[in-house]
């Protein structure tokens, strides 16, 4: 596995992104994109095989990109179990989603552009995964951000989509600001930005010591990096952009807002786990994750848009991953991340085919009775739901169980919050299923099953969603770093109870109801209004912003005043000097005067050079004479 | 093959052949060496040159019949002064551009065979040194009295009156003219003969015309007499027209 083959993984989609705009037909573009991603997927799986099965440890490959003042900034790739797992997952899920979106976007005129952005996103994501230096990580992080913005506001003729894109971009930028400051701090303290170097003086190998702003430096760094993760993964304060991001086409949501991009934040924390550990920030991570999970779960209950419900479930699941990493280390977090990627992608694609089937209808109140017309989609959707709800022995169950076990071992309150969140997850998922599948179709035109190209990836994903957990569990827990706790009986019972209880509760509430017209019992006001977070921000940030504008205008006025004052003062002094000193002293007396004198002197000199040839000859002869005289008289 | 410079050698050979040839066969030398004549042996006056007609000083190169030199007067057969053609009308004297002819008319007329008596030139001088042999006098002479002679040996030591040819020197007979310029002489005689014939014919015609007119006049007189007698009997309205027509008719007759 040399550096160049590794580099191919992110490069292939990038090349595809570069070539696709030249293509005219969407179909061709799709083919190229899919081909490129399949290529990198092959390499990724081969790398996965080498690192996981053959357990070869690869040294970090790093290439010097830039040297500024002695310090080398170099790009590099790291191939260890964590990255190979993530790369394999991203490429595999990505390919399936690409194939799915080839069918989904077939009718759209700007399909080529869509696939160009998708390949760009894929290359960015793979860059993030493989990056060995923080700078490359950050750059790919930004590429992913841009791609998500482009994809969200893909249907830019819809104003909300454009607004959603902007919102997503700005909110993630706020997170990235923290991340950037974190990077600078790391660079200042450790002097290098590489995670691992052969001389193992990488930033993760030699942890910086000392304090900054009163806290431990690693704490500060990890906090700042965590802020970046919150922004990107949509944790509590900065989660508002994720639900609105549903404006983009469904495969986008599936790829970006389920499987990969949001996972980037979690991956960042996983990658820089030693710093978090050293800085003692893990409990904070856990708490933020738990609260986000709970709140998101409650909001999801109040939502009527199919994709919004899934969005909020993603937010809560990410919270759980953060809890996983916070309490039980990288392995547990990554386990849940991997499994979540599969079943959440499945759910989103399923939602996509449902919407496609109901002729672009997204409101669950207008759906219903889809089981019969769309059997395949329904089956896949149900598998996804089971996995999400952590029905026993599905992959979701294993990963969530690990988290709960870890939480139980280290942090009791977080355990209970997480359990409650899981319960809520089960409830809103069953609510959603009850709305969509049983009963009579409330929409105005007959739903129809999507064609093969969309349903096949669904089936593949559903297989993984169910089986992956058991398959991968123990090998993953050993290879990845982390401290998974033992499973007490109480943890197992609680998790099973939570899962089944939630389903039962949901079925109970929504069973016989005439869904659609009456108000939803659980859709309480605050849930539906998403705890008024947007309004809150609107109120605070917006007003703050205007306050800031007013303040800056005042400041500007003041500065202008000061500038005019100084200008006036200096001009007056200047003229004083100009008239007095310059004109009198210099012009007439010293400089110009001198120039005039020189000029008239030179004019008399030019008279010699007046093109009068005989004159020249005479001067030469005269010179000779003088020289002769001089020589004779002196000798 | 064309050897370089072969042209020059061929040329040189030709000139060499000429050079040597000229010494051996005399006909090559086409320029006769002109006999040198001592001044004293030259005749004093141009006219003194032998008068026998046609006899040159020396059989010089044949004189072609187109050579012209100075004019001469012609006279028909018989005694020169009686049959001289020139009637001293002095047209040639007037026309001569260099004015080299001087004529004095005789005061009495001389009988001319077959013609009425005419004047004759008492003196007829041509100054040969002035004459430029332009032949204008020959063209203007109505009586073919003066033609061009081809004798050129007229050099005399005396430039002034030596070169003045008098009437006696100029007068030559028609046979001599025929000898030196046969074609031209023949043309000229034929033309004279034709003119004479034409004149007689005209004279005859004139007489015939006169008799015819006399006869016509008599016939007319008779017819008018009868006509007058008829007119008294007819109306007098149209007398003027008939008279004008009558005149016209008469003229055209």
């Amino acid at each position, binding site marked *: 596995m040399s550096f160049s083959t590794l580099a191919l993984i992110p490069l292939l989609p990038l090349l595809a992104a570069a070539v696709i705009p030249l293509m005219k037909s969407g179909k061709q573009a799709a083919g190229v994109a899919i081909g490129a991603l399949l290529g990198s997927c092959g390499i990724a799986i081969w790398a996965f095989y080498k690192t996981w099965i053959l357990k070869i440890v690869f040294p970090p490959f790093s290439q010097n990109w830039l040297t500024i003042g002695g310090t080398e900034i170099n790009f590099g790739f790291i191939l260890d179990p964590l990255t190979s797992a993530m790369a394999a997952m991203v490429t595999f899920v990505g390919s399936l989603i690409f194939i799915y979106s080839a069918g989904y976007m077939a009718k759209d005129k700007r399909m080529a552009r869509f696939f160009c952005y998708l390949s760009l996103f894929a290359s960015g994501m793979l860059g993030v995964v493989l990056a060995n230096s923080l700078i490359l990580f950050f750059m790919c992080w930004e590429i992913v951000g841009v791609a998500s913005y482009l994809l969200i506001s893909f249907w830019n003729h819809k104003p909300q989509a454009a607004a959603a894109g902007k919102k997503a971009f700005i909110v993630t930028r706020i997170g990235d600001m923290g991340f950037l400051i974190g990077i600078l701090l790391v660079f200042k303290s450790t002097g290098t930005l590489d995670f691992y170097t052969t001389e193992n003086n990488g930033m993760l190998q030699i942890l910086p010591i000392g304090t900054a702003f009163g806290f431990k430096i690693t704490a500060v760094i990890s906090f700042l990096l965590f802020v970046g993760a919150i922004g990107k993964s949509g944790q509590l304060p900065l989660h508002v952009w994720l639900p609105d991001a549903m404006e983009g086409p469904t495969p986008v949501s599936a790829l970006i807002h389920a499987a990969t991009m949001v996972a980037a934040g979690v991956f960042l924390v996983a990658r820089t786990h030693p710093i978090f550990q050293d800085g003692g920030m893990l409990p904070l991570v856990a708490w933020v994750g738990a609260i986000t999970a709970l709140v998101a779960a409650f909001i999801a209950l109040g939502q009527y848009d199919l994709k919004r419900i899934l969005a909020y479930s993603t937010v809560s699941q990410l919270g759980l991953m953060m809890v996983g990493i916070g309490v039980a280390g990288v392995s547990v977090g990554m386990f849940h991340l991997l499994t979540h990627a599969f079943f959440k992608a499945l759910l989103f694609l399923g939602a996509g085919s449902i919407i496609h089937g109901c002729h672009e209808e997204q409101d669950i109140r207008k759906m219903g009775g889809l089981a019969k017309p769309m059997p395949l989609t329904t089956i896949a959707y149900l598998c996804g739901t089971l996995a999400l709800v952590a029905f026993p022995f599905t992959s979701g169950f294993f990963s969530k169980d690990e988290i709960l076990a870890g939480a139980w071992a280290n942090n009791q309150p977080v355990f209970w919050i997480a359990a409650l969140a899981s319960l809520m997850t089960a409830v809103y998922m069953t609510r959603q299923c009850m709305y969509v599948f049983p009963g009579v179709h409330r929409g105005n035109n007959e739903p129809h099953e999507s064609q093969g190209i969309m349903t096949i990836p669904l089936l593949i994903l559903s297989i993984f969603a169910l089986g992956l957990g058991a398959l991968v569990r123990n090998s993953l827990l050993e290879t990845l770093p982390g401290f998974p706790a033992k499973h007490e009986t109480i943890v197992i019972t609680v998790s099973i109870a939570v899962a089944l209880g939630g389903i039962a509760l949901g079925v109970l509430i929504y069973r016989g109801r005439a869904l659609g017209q009456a108000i939803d019992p659980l859709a309480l006001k605050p849930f539906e209004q998403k705890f008024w977070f947007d309004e809150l921000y609107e109120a605070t940030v917006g007003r703050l912003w205007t306050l800031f504008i007013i303040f800056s205008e005042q400041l500007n006025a003041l500065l202008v005043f000061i500038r005019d004052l100084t200008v006036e003062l200096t001009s007056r002094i200047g003229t004083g000097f100009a008239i007095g000193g310059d004109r009198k002293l210099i012009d007439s007396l010293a400089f110009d005067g001198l120039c005039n004198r020189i000029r008239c002197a030179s004019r008399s000199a030019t008279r010699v050079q007046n*093109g009068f040839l005989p004159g020249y*000859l005479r001067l030469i002869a005269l010179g000779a004479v003088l020289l002769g005289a001089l020589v004779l008289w002196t000798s | 093959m064309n050897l370089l410079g072969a042209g020059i050698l061929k040329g040189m050979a030709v000139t060499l052949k000429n050079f040597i040839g000229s010494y051996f066969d005399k006909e090559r030398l086409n320029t006769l060496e002109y006999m040198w004549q001592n001044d004293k042996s030259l005749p004093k006056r141009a006219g003194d040159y032998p008068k026998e007609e046609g006899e040159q000083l020396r059989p010089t190169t044949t004189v072609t019949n187109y050579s012209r030199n100075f004019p001469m007067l012609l006279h028909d057969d018989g005694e020169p002064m009686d049959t001289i053609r020139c009637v001293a009308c002095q047209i040639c004297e007037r026309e001569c551009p260099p004015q080299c002819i001087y004529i004095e008319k005789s005061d009495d007329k001389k009988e001319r065979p077959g013609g009425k008596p005419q004047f004759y030139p008492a003196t007829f001088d041509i100054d040969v040194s002035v004459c430029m042999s332009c032949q204008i006098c020959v063209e203007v002479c109505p009586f073919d009295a003066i033609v061009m002679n081809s004798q050129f040996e007229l050099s005399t030591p005396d430039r002034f009156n030596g070169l003045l040819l008098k009437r006696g020197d100029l007068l030559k007979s028609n046979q001599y003219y025929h000898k030196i310029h046969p074609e031209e002489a023949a043309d000229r005689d034929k033309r004279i003969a034709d003119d004479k014939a034409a004149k007689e014919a005209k004279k005859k015609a004139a007489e015939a015309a006169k008799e015819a007119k006399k006869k016509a006049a008599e016939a007319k007189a008779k017819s008018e007499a009868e006509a007058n007698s008829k007119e008294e009997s007819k109306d007098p309205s149209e007398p003027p027209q008939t008279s004008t027509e009558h005149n016209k008719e008469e003229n055209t007759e």
Partner: protein
Amino acid sequence: MTVTLHHYLILASVLFCIGLLGALSRRNAIVVLFSVEIMLNAANLNFIAFWRFGNNPELLHGPLFTLFTIAVAAAEVALGLALVIAVYRHFRSVDLESLNTLKEE
């Protein structure tokens, strides 16, 4: 009194100065050219004089050197005249004073 080296040297310098006078004061370019010729010949005279009165004439330095100067002078005159003709074609005059386009404005 026999003719000594000094006679020739003085004669040569007189001729040289006549040539210089011509070059300096004449207006016509061609006259300047052949006054330069006069100067060159004066120099040649010097060479031969030194060779004749010098102490080892068998080296023949004098005549050799004059040969070379004569050749160079001939070449120089040819070129000088060619240039004068070229100048004349352009300026329509060989009068040195009219050729003053080099003048500093």
